[in-house]
């Protein structure tokens, strides 16, 4: 089969999670979803409009993919408008993954900015599933406003399962009593043993640079911090050339990249 041929999937459910974002669950018309690892993505195709990379946020009980999509461009808007029973194309899963088991025995800091939590959800699920293997687990989430927070019920569940969940917002409403401002501020507050801590970071690039930078400043090894990077992507399989970041083809060498490698590349403007 040609690597650019999508498999037909059906939209099994569509739940708006905020004004511009939906949770889609997608199941193949035939057969089962291929297995995925935390951090991997699929190329989802909206018929007649185009195809975009979307992180896999989880697996449904029926075996489908949960994918959280925000309406930003033509393709994501079309995917957000799909209805239950609609046909979409799916290729993948593609890309590198977050090595969660490698953090066994360590403290873990998961830092999510905005939609970055959608990519990190399988990481937190994996941590919670094997809670006893890890030391202190902190999940810090930055979001625009209380209303734009992703997966609020799961955040409560994870907190009850022994994760220190901290949320900060840019624009508080009248009821908000939590922290306001950057995710970086929260890193200053949380407790971890830097020399045995792993960091998983995903969000806008400025947020990732700041968060990973702060972890390093507190003594976490850059090699133990992994980020998920985003670039324009047309193929997901190393043939379109769009997702280059210096030597990396992010569809093959990423999206999950160690901060040790990414820091140098992210520091070059417009690389």
């Amino acid at each position: 089969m040609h690597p650019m041929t999508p498999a037909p999937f059906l939209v099994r459910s569509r739940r708006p999670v905020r004004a511009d974002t939906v949770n889609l669950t997608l199941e193949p018309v035939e057969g089962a979803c291929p297995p995925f690892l935390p951090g991997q993505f699929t190329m989802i195709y909206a018929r007649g409009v185009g195809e975009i990379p979307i992180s896999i946020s989880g697996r449904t009980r029926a075996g489908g993919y949960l994918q959280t999509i925000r309406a930003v461009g033509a393709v994501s808007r079309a995917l957000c408008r799909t209805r239950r029973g609609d046909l979409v194309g799916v290729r993948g899963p593609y890309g590198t993954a977050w090595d969660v088991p490698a953090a066994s025995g360590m403290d873990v800091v998961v830092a999510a900015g905005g939609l970055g939590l959608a990519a990190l959800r399988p990481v937190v699920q994996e941590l919670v599933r094997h809670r006893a293997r890890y030391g202190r687990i902190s999940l810090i989430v930055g979001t625009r406003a209380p209303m734009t927070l992703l997966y609020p019920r799961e955040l409560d569940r994870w907190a009850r399962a022994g994760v220190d969940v901290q949320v900060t917002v840019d624009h508080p409403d009248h009821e908000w009593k939590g922290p306001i401002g950057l995710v970086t501020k929260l890193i200053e507050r949380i407790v971890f043993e830097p020399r045995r801590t792993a960091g998983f970071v995903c969000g806008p690039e400025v947020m990732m640079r700041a968060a990973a930078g702060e972890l390093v400043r507190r003594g976490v090894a850059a090699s133990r911090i992994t980020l998920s990077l985003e670039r324009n992507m047309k193929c997901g399989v190393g043939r379109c050339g769009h997702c280059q970041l210096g030597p990396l083809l992010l569809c093959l060498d990423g999206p999950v990249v160690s901060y040790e490698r990414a820091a140098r590349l992210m520091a070059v403007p417009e690389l």
Partner: protein
Amino acid sequence: MDVVVLESLDPLIEELRSAGYTVVGPTVQDRAVRMAEISSAADLPAGVGDVQDPGSYRLTSGADGMLFGYAASPDSAKRFTQPPRQTLVRMRDGAFEEVDEGAPRVALLGVRACDLAAIAVQDRVFAGSRHPDPAYRRRREALFLIAVNCAVPGGTCFCVSMGTGPKATAGFDLAVTELDAPHRFLVETGSERGGEIVARVPHRRAASEDVHAADEVSRMAAVRMGRQVDTDGIQHWLPAAHDSPRWTDVASRCLSCTNCTMVCPTCFCSTVEDVTDLTGQVTERSERWDSCFTLDFSEVSGTHARGSGLARYRQWLTHKFATWYDQFGTSGCVGCGRCITWCPTGIDVTEELACIR
């Protein structure tokens, strides 16, 4: 390797045609050498030469009766290995159907050593990847490659620096060196099917004078190379020079026109387009050549990773000469010089690299 001499290319062209190949070779069109279908050696550009300089390409009269007395033409083999546009998928009635555009049996006559090297680079991208492209493989297998060893390198050529020429050493079915006094063609066989074709056309075994004459053609071509690049350590020093002031200088001359990427025989970047018919029932998805010089190439959520012309030129040159090694284990440049010749403002990569270093 069998080495034979042909008095004329006509029986070879005839034999390829009767074996079912469309023979494509150099012809003169629009005052340039273009690759097009030929039916006999009479279609080849006899007595044509060229003068290539930064931003300049002119045909001239070359050596009397010689058929290959010019350097790389604007056409490379790329459009035969990677068609400028190919339909990938057709969708109707809720089904995705893979489109096989077929693999035409084409015999490419006049492929230069740099272009053979470029095909080998594309093989790594499309066939040697973790997600190999079966359609590419079929096209490559259907492509019969007849190399021509360059006698007269162009003013913008630097294949010697890139280690790709001027003599074709691998990756061909047949390799031809055109000799004069008397006019004849030394033919080396590079594959079984190449040998089978040659065996069916009138030939004689090459004498040592023929072989020496051909060696001399390649030796002289190497000596007359128009340009050079010092590639020593380029994989390391070029990415490290990301803040060189030279990038600002070259960006002031670069129009971001994409010409260099279109004529480049290894530039493989593509984008995907959807077209739905008027009934709304059938949608076709096709892949077409794209260029890292366009603004939307790096667009993500309304912003551009490489918004400036400087960043786009730096990306192209750094990828071509350095980060290509990281991704594909080889240089992306084969030294054909097309990007220099066809740059409307005459930007010369060899000069830019020397200045950046």
